[in-house]
């Protein structure tokens, strides 16, 4: 199998992980701010 394909195959996963981390972090921060505004605990 071509090295370029294998390189992409190895390095694509951290990129997807970074995207997922961004989505989760943004949602968490929004919920945290909302909880602060409403003077309640997040969970």
């Amino acid at each position, binding site marked *: 199998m071509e090295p370029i394909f294998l390189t992409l195959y*190895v390095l694509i996963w951290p990129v997807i992980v*970074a995207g997922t981390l961004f989505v*989760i972090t943004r949602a968490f921060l929004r919920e945290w701010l909302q909880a602060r505004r409403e003077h309640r605990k997040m969970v």
Partner: protein
Amino acid sequence: MAPNGVELQQLSGWMVIALLVLFYGGTFIMTLGIGKKKENADGYMTAGNKIGFGISAASMTATWIWASSMYASATSGYTYGISGPIHYGLWGALMILFIYPFGKRIRKVAPRAHTLAEVMYARHGRASQLMLAGSNVVGSLISVTSNFIAGGALIAMLSPFSFQQGILAVAAGTLLYSLWSGFRASVMTDFAQVLAMLGAVVIIIPMVFFAAGGPDMFVQGAPRLTPQQGNFFSSDAFMNQGAPYIAAVLAYAIGNQTIAQRLFAVREDLIKKTFVTATIGYGATIIGIGMLGVMALYVGITPTGGDVNNLIPQMAATYLGPVLLCLFLIMVIGALSSTADADLCALSSIMMADIYGQNVAKRGEANPKTMLLVGRITMVVATGAGLYFASGQMNILDLLVFVGALWGCLVFPVIASFYWSKVTNTAFVAAVSTALAVFIPVRFSWIPVDGLWGLVVDVLSIGGIGVVIGLMCFGFFGGRVARIAGIVSAVVAAPFAFGHLHDYAVLSGSLVAYAVSTGVCFLLSARSKMDFDFSTIKDTVGDFDPTTTAVPDAAATRR
């Protein structure tokens, strides 16, 4: 053994102590922010059934990314080559996705439940409940144990401390922040843990890749791979790793209380979003970590002591400098702690709701304060048991597959119980018991699997293929499509599988469990006159704390 001329890095003892104090101290301080002097029993188990998307997605992702799955994915990459991590991580990710349609159904019929076994009690009765609860106790104890083993092995490899000292440190640290607030602490700390884990994956995989030689590694290391290891469509990888996992995915998703607990905790309208995000997060992380095993294969690393569980720490110790090695340590500690705390919460919920709440306390007299005490004692005892079993250092991958297959006996009876009003308690119990009785001798080859018995195992296994594919389709497309898909897949597989499948004990054991439990459950239920009213479940499964405001009818009915 590292490649020639490459030294293994180690962290100093004080550095490891500082990192553990930072990690466990930090998570403990996080829990102080949400802690209440008087915790409530329902909050201790499900955090009030209304947590948001950010926390629930983080929690679902963190819980399913356990250290054992990181190690197993890398092992799969090292053993089966480039397709190995896919055959571990992809199916592992799909298990989260496949449960979401079932999860929505379960949540609809029991919106304020704490455990799946508790719902089985309302649906069938005590025997079904205790079967599900018992399987979860075994599964969670194995999970806790394997996470402690992973922590101990990691600390032993990267520091001057011993394996025993390592397992003691992670067990004490996890218990410290989970004990007081239970599930609420677990989901809250999961966010910090997912941040550490996913963040570390983003940095560490490219760093190891370039330190190990970058694209040149694939040119120079290619001769080290067998044709099967170098083939993206390897039949070895599929038959020995992928296929048993496909059979296990549904079982994990349905049987595991850690998933069920998060299913009952998340706001109902966020279930789909949460599960899809966790599927992507888990899949990319675990496949990515599996690439460390693939790289180890290309560069010619031999696992220390012949133990493949040492591969990940060994790759990190070989190719990462001290700073990234610290990050790596935090990543694995985060992975194992988030799952271990989820399992401690699962065990405590089962003991609180299923054992004390519905079997020990007199009907209607479960005391929430006593429940909390039961939950906390359970956590301490489970941690002790995990430490005891971890001392034996079992093979993690074998444990995972075994528990998955064990839960395979439960999958059809559990799912059918939520959709088919004719399923009876007798059908449930007989199906699970019979499947277990057939599964165990097949899985462990107690009876020689050849001759006529081998052919019987093949026929049952082909039936099992149909059941697995049918169930996967059922959640998304309904009964008609599921039946067609199940029959077609069994017919298509039959010519290839008949006469051969019994050679794969792990795979055929799982498939036999599915086939037998489905067959028995179907035959006994089809003739029953039961017509269960699912709307009654929400009236019998509800809150234990009188102060919880929602669904007052449920509490009243219970009492």
